[in-house]
Structure formats: structure tokens, C-alpha cells
């Protein structure tokens, strides 16, 4: 489902396999387990995390087939696990870079935006909040998160209220993505370069995490267990 490797001082979290990397309890739990090893243990200063994916897709969102096969009382499990995953990224004591190596849709976009920096593949792939197209509404934490991460009115409106398929170039122009690169390997290489640059400036990761949670305080309030919201 995912692997965590270390390249020097950069951790590389990869969603593995050629599928759509859709969020079901297994994948979300694997991702949280990988991140928990970074949340709990002490590690060298000046580290960073990159999240990337194999294949055509970064992540195409929630696993609808899992949802259809699960009893209704269980549906909220994947929403709650995603909420926990976002809280993990917000708490991570190192800078985070998302290497959007393929299509990101719906909840997959949330994973992208949970990072501090975004590098996106420009020769193919879209950033696409498909919820309006498929007829899904937002729960509160999701809404709060997107409002804090995309403050520009026209951009947020196009992304959420027009279900626009945004290319890397357009995403950069509109402030959603920091850098664009060619191909999967090129995107990961650029992400590594960016990760090295930002890692060099952060020696105290725990202080970074505190500031990040303060910067996105509304999101933190809605995704953190400590904030009172029931996970």
C-alpha cells in the first residue's frame, strides 16, 4: 500500500502499485502508521518528508467500492481516518513536500494540500475536486481545511464550486502548487531539491509543527483529537 524509505535526511513516503490509490481503511491506516513512526521517534534535525505515488494516479479519492460493501454505520471510518491523516501531517515535526506524480481527485486533493509545499507533474495529470460532479457534499473539517488552504475567492470557487480540472501550470499561477516538473521521475527529483532546500532551514521540527498548527488553527481545531472533535 505504501512504503517509507530514507534518502539522506529526506523521508520518501510512496503510495505503491499502479492503481488509483483510493482511500480505504487499509491504505489510510498504512499511511498513518508510516507517519506515526515520524511523529513519535526523535530524528535528525533538518529532515523533510516527501509523499509521492507510483503509476498514473496520485490518488483518486475515497474507495467507493469499499464504502458500498460496508454497512452504513461504518462509512464514517474513512472520513475519520482521513481527518486523522490530515492531523498527522499538520503535526509532523519536519517540512512536508507533496510530489503530485499523477492525477489527484477529491479526497486525494486533500492529501496534496495537507503538505507545506507542492510539486506537481506538468506534462499530464489534473488536480480535480470532483465532489460537485459526482454529487457529494462536504463535512465540516473538510470545508474548513479547504477554506484555510485556498483563501483566494476565485480559485476556491473554481476548484470547489466549478469542479475545475486544474493543470500544474494553472495550479502554480493560482497559488495551489509551488513548482511544476516533467514526468514522474522529474517531479520526484524536483520535490527532493525543494525538500533539501527547506530542510536546511528547519533544525527544530517540533517548533515548525507548533507554528503550522497555529497557522491553520481552524483546521487543527477540527481535525485534532485534543481540539475536542471526536475522532
Amino acid at each position, binding site marked *: 500500500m505504501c512504503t517509507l524509505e530514507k534518502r539522506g535526511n529526506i523521508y520518501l513516503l510512496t503510495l505503491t502499485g499502479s492503481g488509483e490509490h483510493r482511500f480505504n481503511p487499509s491504505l489510510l491506516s498504512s499511511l498513518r502508521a508510516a507517519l506515526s513512526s515520524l511523529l513519535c521517534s526523535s530524528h535528525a534535525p533538518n529532515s523533510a518528508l516527501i509523499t509521492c505515488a507510483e503509476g498514473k494516479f496520485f490518488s483518486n479519492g475515497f474507495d*467507493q467500492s469499499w*464504502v*458500498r460493501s460496508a454497512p*452504513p454505520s461504518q*462509512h*464514517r471510518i474513512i*472520513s475519520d481516518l482521513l481527518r486523522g491523516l490530515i492531523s498527522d501531517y499538520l503535526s509532523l515535526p519536519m517540512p512536508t513536500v507533496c510530489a503530485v506524480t499523477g492525477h489527484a481527485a477529491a479526497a486525494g486533493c486533500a492529501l496534496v494540500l495537507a503538505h507545506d509545499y507542492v510539486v506537481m507533474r506538468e506534462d499530464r495529470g489534473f488536480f480535480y475536486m470532483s*465532489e*460537485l*460532479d459526482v*454529487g*457529494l*457534499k*462536504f*463535512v*465540516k473539517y*473538510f*470545508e*474548513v481545511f*479547504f*477554506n484555510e488552504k485556498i*483563501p*483566494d*475567492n*476565485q480559485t*476556491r*470557487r473554481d476548484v*470547489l*464550486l*466549478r*469542479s475545475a480540472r486544474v493543470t500544474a501550470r494553472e495550479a502554480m499561477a493560482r497559488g495551489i502548487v509551488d513548482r511544476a516538473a516533467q514526468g514522474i521521475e522529474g517531479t520526484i527529483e524536483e520535490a527532493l531539491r525543494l525538500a533539501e532546500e527547506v530542510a536546511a532551514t528547519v533544525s527544530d521540527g517540533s517548533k515548525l509543527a507548533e507554528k503550522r498548527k497555529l497557522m491553520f488553527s481552524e483546521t487543527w481545531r477540527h481535525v485534532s483529537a485534543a481540539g475536542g472533535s471526536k475522532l
Partner: protein
Amino acid sequence: MCTLEKRGRVLILTLTGSGEHRLGPGLISSLRSALATARSDPSVAALVTAGEGRFFSNGLDLAWAKNSSEGLSTLVRLVKPLIADLISLPMPTVAAVTGHAAAAGMMLAVAHDYVYMRGDRGVLYMSELDIGLPFPDYFMDLMQAKITDPRTLRDVTLRAKKITGTEAKERGIVDKVCQSASETVAEAVKMAEELAGRNWDKGVYASIRLSVYPKLCKSLEIPQESDEAVRKHFASRL
């Protein structure tokens, strides 16, 4: 005061006459009635609002307020649910700003999802500072929701800047600038048709708009669904 015309799945609401289309009790009521028609007609999938003549709307009917014992506060109170109607309308909305839009008239324009404006003449103008009037709270909430560039918001509210269509496009208030009033309407209708063609579920559209503008919803007293209701909706769609 205003007319409704159906073109395919698009409803075109026009503020009629060559006057300033000032928002007094009569026009506000007509507009709310028109929006209620749009809301209740299942064949309508998008709304365009336009104006005839030199003005889109020049704001509240101050002359009426002066002659009325209830005054300005009444008009401020009456416009709030009109803005709420637009923010809660279960379909995409496009403003075709065919002339000057000032104060409450500018609020009417920016309360639409998309704002198209003519670039050859006409300005967006929050005149309140110039004429010594305060902003109702919900005006500021609407402006903070729709004008997210800080310097643009400052120029609009603290400098009472008159902004042309071209400048408004550069500064992120307007989505498209057109060469004339008729072109503005034509392009707005074209956009509305495109949006209608996406065949979005109306309830979902309305819900997502509230998610995009939660603070504004609270200010306009538009209720948002609970997470439980959202989950129930999700389950019902499987």
C-alpha cells in the same frame, strides 16, 4: 421593476428601465419574487442577472429612506434576505454588470457566483465612505468573502475607489470583461448555459456554495447541514 426571461435552462433576470434601479421595498420584493421563481422551477438550472440602461444598480433607495419614518435601517434589513436568497440559490448565478454598480448595487453584483462586466463604461463603487454611511455587517462579510486580495479590499472599502470592469478583472473581483452591455449579457448567458450543462445536483451545488462561504452564511443566517445530515445524504446516494 424587473423581468424574467427563459432561454433554455437559463433564467435571465433583468432590472428594467433607464433609471438607477435603486433598491427600495418595491424592487427588493420583485427581485425576491423572481429568485423564488428561479428556485421553484425544476427546468431552470442557472441564473443571469442584468440591468437595462446606464446602471446595474446604484444602491439603496435613499430618497425613499428619507421620506419614510422607518428610514435607512429598514432598507438595510430588507436587502439582507435578498442577498441570502442569492447565496442560497440552488444553481449557478452569473451577474452581467451592464452599468454602474454602487454600494448595495455592488453587493447585489458580487453576491453572484460569477461576475461579468462591461469594460467600456461603468464602475464598481462602494460609495459609503464618500457619503458618510456605515457598512451593514453583512456587506463587509460579503466583501471579505468575495474580495480576498487585501489591497483590493482596502481600496474598495477604505478608499471608496471607483473600479472599472478591466481593473476589477485584474484585481480578482470580476471574472470576464466585455466590450458592451449586450456582449456582457450574451457572454454571461453563454457561461450560465455551460454551467447548466454540467448537470449538477441542485442541492449539492447549494450545499457546496455554503461550504465555500461558511462565514457569510452565518452572517446571512443561512443554516448549514450538520455532518450527520451530510453523511446520510452520502449513504442515500450509494
